[in-house]
């Protein structure tokens, strides 16, 4: 015999009812954003993956031919290599530097507000202004060259030499260090001082406290910071593009340059295959990091 609804509901614990109801409301609020992401990002990306198995305009199924083509493409190898090199250098540097800054500022306490603001300011500067700054500093007639001439050297157009890569790295670090520092500070603030006190009482040194308490407690924050830094590393293309155009010096030639140029020449098949690979690599990296974090948490 079926119980009336009221009695049915009465069978379930109240907290489960509330959880279901909250879930429904939450889903409803998430739905518009989800629809937007689906329509403008996810579904188009599925289309990109689909296009990577077809000819650019013919619509002819070519299997893995596009993937094979891009791995043999010198431009892809150069751009991919530069992007990988940039990521492998910048992420660890940024993480370590921003953590160091966060620890220092955390130690200073409330008096460190001015420093916090100073480090955050570069992120607020528009890209076009940053590009202007680069020109003033690194152009062959810029301040750096003038300084070198004053010391008896020859002027250099820094953006057209191998130094261009390191300028890009420096710019990335300069713009993002404040942001990551704030994230670290947020992570640090969640660590209970009682743990440090207990450790002190047990005779733990500063280094031991750092390695045994601070670092493990910051692992979730590390995951967030690494992922965000990785995604932000692709934004450095904006400065590189504004200052050096479609074809910058080889050391600065990134995947986005290549994708941009492939779109102009209608190489959509190669573009789709390369984009799929890049997305796949980033996804695997994030999942690996998440797994590592989960493993460490356990």
């Amino acid at each position, binding site marked *: 015999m079926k119980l009336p609804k009221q009695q049915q509901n009465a069978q379930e614990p109240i907290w489960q009812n509330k959880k279901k109801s909250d879930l429904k*409301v939450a889903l409803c609020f998430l739905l518009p954003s989800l629809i937007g992401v689906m329509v403008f990002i996810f579904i188009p990306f599925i289309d990109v993956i689909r296009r990577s198995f077809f000819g*650019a305009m013919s619509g002819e199924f070519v299997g893995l031919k596009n993937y094979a083509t891009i791995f043999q493409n010198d431009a892809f190898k150069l751009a991919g290599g530069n992007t990988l090199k940039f990521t492998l250098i910048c992420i660890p540097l940024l993480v370590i530097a921003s953590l160091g800054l966060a620890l220092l500022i955390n130690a200073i306490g409330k008096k460190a507000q001015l420093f916090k603001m100073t480090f955050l300011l570069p992120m607020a500067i528009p890209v076009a202004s940053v590009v202007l700054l680069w020109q003033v500093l690194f152009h062959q007639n810029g301040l750096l060259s003038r300084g070198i001439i004053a010391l008896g050297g020859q002027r250099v157009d820094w953006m057209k030499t191998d130094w261009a890569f390191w300028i890009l790295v420096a710019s990335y670090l300069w713009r993002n260090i404040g942001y990551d520092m704030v994230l670290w500070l947020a992570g640090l603030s969640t660590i209970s001082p009682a743990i440090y006190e207990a450790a002190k009482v047990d005779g733990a040194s500063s280094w031991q406290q750092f390695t045994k308490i601070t670092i493990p407690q910051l692992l979730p924050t590390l995951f967030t910071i690494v992922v965000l830094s990785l995604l932000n590393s692709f934004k450095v293309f904006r400065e590189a593009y504004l200052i050096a155009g479609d074809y910058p010096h080889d050391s600065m030639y990134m995947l986005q340059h290549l994708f941009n140029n492939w779109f102009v020449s209608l190489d959509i098949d190669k573009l789709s295959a390369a984009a799929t690979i890049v997305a796949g690599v980033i996804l695997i990296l994030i999942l690996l990091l998440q797994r590592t974090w989960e493993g460490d948490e356990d």
Partner: protein
Amino acid sequence: MKKHIYKLMVGLLIGATAFGVTGCSNNIAGEKSSVSQDIPMGRYIEETVDMPKEIKSLIDYKVNSDGTMEIHGYASGNQVVAYTSKDGKSWESKDATWLNDLISAGNQLSAITSNEKGEYYALYYNPDFKTRIGKLSEGNKVEEIPYEVDESSYISAIKVDEEGSIFVGMNNGVVRINEADGSVITEYSVTGTEGEVVVVDNQLMVIDAQRGGLVAFNLESGDEENFIPYEGTLWGSKLLSNDEGNVYIVNTEGVSRLAPGGSIWENVIESSTSSFGTPSLFVRQVAMKGNDEFSVAFDSVEGAYTLLNYHFDPNVPSRPTTEVNLYMLEDNRTIRQAVAEYQRQNQEVFINIQVGIQEGDTLTKADAIRTLNTQLLAGKGPDILVLDGLPIQSYMEKGVLLDMSDWVDGMRDSGKWLENITEAYRQEDGSIYALPTRFKVPTLWGNKELVNGVDSLEGLADWAKENPDKQVFYSMTPEELMKKLYGITAHEWMDETGQIKEDAFVTFIESINTLSGQGGADEAPSMNSSSSGMTIEFNDADDPAIQESIKNTLSTEYMAHKDVELHMTEVEAFMEIPYLNSAIMQRGDGDFGAVLAKDGGVYNPVGIVGINANSKNKDIASEIVKLAMSKEVQKVDLYEGFPIDKEALEEQAIINEDGMMAAMGMAIEKPIKMQPATQESYTKLKEQVDKLTIPAMTDEVLMNLIIEETKGYFNGEKTANEAAEAAAKRTRAYLAE
């Protein structure tokens, strides 16, 4: 209660999102709009009227109140003739003795006009070169109206009304004079007028092109009462009015109407659907036929005249239902000519021209190409593509373009085209996806020993070293010289895959260095000119196009005076030859030829057209391309390059006996004695054209990369080998893509 409010808010959010997503319509150009049931009807239809064949040059055209068309013009032998026609099908001769008598008396006729009463007036220069206005009176005599024109003024037009007032349009305003005694009745102050006036309801309407609008003056007092701005250029515009008080502006943008008391211009005839947009036609004179029909006499670049009547047909759709889209990265007059011609012959088709980069745009070429590619990828690109500046090779490889060999082969076999030019884009398998509609020829003018004896850049550089007291080219920076020679010589230092051959490239840049190092190249050319004692200043000195033009002229002058040995220029019309020929004649030991014509010579294809393989209007697109390549369009010299139609080229290569005048030229520093054009020079250039075989390299990206990497060499910071290595390395990524 809270739950209900939450649900309501969520529902509204979802609704708004769904509306926003579905509201974003995919309205990319190229998509034919679906034909709805309610198509707006009514549009002006164009009708060609055959002009009397005897008329070689138009003096005046009007339509009388009874609808009779009346033309005055010059026939052969400078005789003035006049014709009238009721229906435009046949013309009757009318007496024009009074004008011929006027001319025989030593006067020079400038214009004639008449009023509704049939009274005629003439504007002319008397034997003392004074401007005079005369009225045709009894006995076919011209009575001079005693109006003295100020020497600083120039009369551009005259108009008359029934009351005996004559409106005289001058460079500094309009005056109303009494025909009886020539006294000034009223003055109207306007600075940007060409004399176009109409009288509407006690107001005089005058076009002020400088201010950009129509000025309404009180007819009696001359006070300005109103100014109605007009968007678009007004220079060369004509003014009309009808009995209902509507005012019309007629120009290359079409016909726009201003209602009585209104301030908004309404476009009644668009240039895109009429001959007003034809690049080769200029509005010469206009007339109202009744209250809402127009009759327009067009002048063409070929010196011919076209008469077109426009009448409103309420039974045709306001816009043709068949729409064909054409895309060009930058404007091309030959294609516009073909489009206008096609639309005139097929008034049921509308060709929508999209220009990727308009004048004054800040959009880059790459951005414009990306926008186009987005359309192509969506399967909704334009039907016809003008491929100049677009990645032609990529489009061909990706199957974007339609293979036109089915009909192109027939044209090739008929021998109508210059095969050496039109076959530039023929593929190995016989397919052809792109056709150039015109071409330009890079040429050298000057020392005949160099023009005829040296066939490589290296040879020129060697000659320069052996003759250090002589300068080969007018002062040019290495970058300028490289830009001029890049397209012409690229096939020598680039292999088939586009990679730089370093050894050959070293030779190339060393030669550039030698040749550009001869003059003090970095200064901008002189901005003042003296010619016949007149000093001319160039106000737009910073405009690169003007700079380039000045340098070109100076280069010719220096070459003529043997201060430099050679002048290099890209010739795009036979009309350029007289000036250049005068320069080499003055030089004495001069000749000309295609630049470094070792392998037949290089040409620069322009107006390259292709058809979108996904086009739903392939037949119409093919017809338009065929028309663009036909003699009908090709014979019109639009200064965009030589025609690829053999007959059109041959006709242009023959000097017009009627127009065999000495070349006109304005000297900047060193005057050149102008000589009449010679048939020999025209024929020689035509013979060179027949031998051209190599299309110039037009890859701007590659050129800019090479220029950047070689700057260090020209500045003395790198050796030639280092520069070549750097250029090869820098271009590798681009070529590898």
